[in-house]
């Protein structure tokens, strides 16, 4: 009774009358109208444009007004609920446990702009540099909100003038290739980074320079200051100099990568740098960063097993070239060999798609004077150096957005004649001799 031509005309009329509802789904229908010769390509484009204009004018989504320089806006984030059991034992045999439920929320807003600029902001729970966790019940009263603040974890601008160069300024995700042995993954350094990456066939070369404001001194040339006591006159700056090489062996999943990096600190003059990191490392204060000139070499090899499962072998070695002086100032010149740290591990599988899982095992040993104790991972060995031990863990993808993770770490002092320095969660008692932690996480990503 009604031929196709009539039906299509009727549909077009309906679309124009009720464009708001159909604007987003009308593409195939308009294409069909063009194919059938009912309208020409130009008329189809005008129809599409009218439908979109109608959509943006009459729907809640369409009323969201965005700047014309914005080309992409993305909201992402994650929620994690954790059970953790952390325990430690002092050299005296005294034992302590810390059993807690925790949660973490992070959400980021990132945008791309014209002319290769971009920006990002990430909000997260908790104030700590090495953790976004909030401990349940850790408030001034039952169900109070005193520890439930939201803080700016990242805020940065990037400029990518070419496909090879990226410049970043602000508080950013760590731009370096590194591991948890040297940098806690929660740390978002503040400052500047310049990155270069170039691929030629199967060879990729990359480099990253970082200038991070470790701590500011506030004013310079302060009123009433004297040459003899110039405290707080210079910002403390940490620099990173990384060069890397990646060799693709077969596709994107079979490659080798090595990325040596040197860390140098500036303005660490013990009279002038900010107080928290001033002076020398002692038995009661591990925060000072005197005599740290660390070279780190992270490397990894990724391949696929015959059964199709991805595998990853990785290692990280580091040495503090100024450890002798750090040990001497600490009062243990005899321990100048505590200058090295290493971390080796292997991972089986990758929990990406629902039902997939992975497992990893790591052995780590860190000399007391090898690394900056303010940066090392806060979970695995309780933010401390002079520790050695194992980490085992794994992930199981429950769904596209959900994952269950389990981590167990067990460590003991590397050198019994020396404290295990660091500001650990099991207590700041540097007489800690043994440590272990179990974490069970439910992760949801969006």
């Amino acid at each position: 009774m009604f031929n196709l031509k009539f039906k299509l005309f009727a549909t077009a009329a309906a679309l124009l009358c009720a464009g708001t509802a159909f604007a987003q789904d009308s593409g195939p229908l308009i294409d069909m109208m063009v194919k059938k010769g009912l309208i020409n390509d130009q008329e189809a484009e005008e129809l599409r444009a009218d439908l979109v204009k109608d959509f943006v004018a009459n729907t809640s989504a369409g009323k969201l007004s965005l700047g014309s320089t914005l080309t992409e806006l993305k909201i992402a984030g994650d929620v994690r609920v954790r059970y953790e059991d952390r325990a430690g034992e002092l050299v005296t045999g005294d034992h302590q446990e810390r059993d807690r439920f925790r949660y973490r929320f992070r959400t980021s807003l990132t945008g791309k702009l014209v002319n290769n600029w971009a920006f990002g902001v990430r909000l997260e729970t908790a104030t700590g540099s090495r953790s976004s966790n909030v401990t349940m019940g850790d408030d001034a009263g039952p169900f109070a909100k005193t520890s439930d603040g939201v803080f700016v974890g990242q805020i940065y601008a990037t400029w990518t003038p070419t496909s090879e160069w990226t410049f970043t300024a602000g508080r950013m995700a760590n731009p370096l290739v590194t591991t948890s042995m040297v940098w806690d993954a929660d740390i978002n350094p503040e400052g500047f980074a310049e990155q270069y990456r170039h691929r030629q066939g199967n060879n990729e070369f990359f480099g990253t320079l970082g200038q991070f404001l470790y701590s500011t001194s506030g004013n310079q040339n302060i009123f009433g200051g004297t040459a003899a006591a110039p405290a707080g006159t210079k910002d403390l700056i940490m620099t990173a100099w990384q060069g890397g090489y990646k060799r693709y062996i077969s596709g994107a999943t079979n490659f080798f990568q090595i990325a040596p990096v040197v860390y140098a600190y500036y303005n660490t003059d013990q009279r002038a740098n900010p107080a928290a990191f001033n002076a020398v490392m002692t038995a009661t204060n591990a925060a000072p960063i005197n005599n740290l000139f660390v070279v780190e070499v992270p490397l990894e090899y990724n391949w696929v097993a015959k059964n199709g499962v991805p595998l990853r072998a990785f290692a990280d070695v580091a040495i503090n070239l100024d450890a002798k002086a750090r040990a001497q100032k600490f009062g243990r010149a005899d321990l100048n060999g505590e200058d090295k740290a290493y971390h080796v591990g292997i991972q089986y599988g990758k929990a990406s798609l629902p039902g997939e899982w992975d497992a990893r095992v790591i052995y780590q040993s860190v000399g007391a004077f090898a690394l900056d104790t303010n940066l090392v991972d806060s979970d695995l060995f309780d933010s401390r150096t002079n520790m050695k031990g194992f980490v085992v863990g794994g992930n199981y993808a429950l769904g596209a957005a959900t994952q269950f993770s389990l981590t167990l770490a067990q460590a003991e002092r590397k050198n019994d004649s020396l404290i295990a320095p660091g500001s650990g969660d099991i207590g700041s008692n540097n007489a800690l001799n043994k440590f272990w932690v179990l974490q069970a996480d439910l992760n949801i990503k969006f």
Partner: protein
Amino acid sequence: MKKTFILLAALALAGAAHAQKLVIKGSDTLGAKLVPMLAEEYKASHPGTTFEIAAEGSTTGIAAITDSTAQIGMSSRRAKPTEMSAATAKGISLKPIIVAFDGIGVIVNQNNPLSALTKRQVEQIFAGDITDWSQVGGTAGPISIYTRNTSSGTYSDFKELAMKKRDYASSSQKMAGNEQIASEVAKNANGIGYVGLAYLHDPGIKTAAIDGVIPSEASVIEKKYPYARPTFYYTNGEPAGEAAKFVEFTLSDAGQKVVRKVGFVPVRPLN
């Protein structure tokens, strides 16, 4: 004396009024070759007109109309709803005008034994599911993917036409323009990329047939080639003044012959 001065002033003003400047911004696909050639042809019959052409990606062309910094915005893709929204908020009515059709050709190195791919294989390669040529029947070797950068209309059009809107493989390398992609693929035996019809004959590359169809004027007009698309001028409402004349010229037989000469497909059959 006074009359002479008034006459000279009037002539100067008339001359200034006659010297029209057209600012055109946007797509590299259109702005690298086609529009500059159209501008040259147009100037031959309109000697008083000057052009300022900036080809930095479709996004910049649509933004230029929204921000009223150009009379014509070049785009190799349709305006997104967010761009329509931004324009509407500023009282701008984005009007699309199809000026040519284009086919996005998938190119490989001329020494690559493969000469045909399926749509599914193209999606899997560019999304990173397939990483070695041996997985699609080629000689074993890691696939190097070259794409346009994110401000390019071709970048988003290819995602929509060929990749079901999936993200590109993280290993893909982003290039500033069609010529750079063709050049990189020509140098890399394991390279794959995509370029507009006008660039398919660059040295060192060859075009892969997609589901058995090679991009050509005929396959694009007949809508048989799967990665075909219209390319646009965007104006604020109906074009006016010199912009209207240039649009009219672009759509005329003379303009469309330039379209064909550059390697695009005219909007209608030409004699």
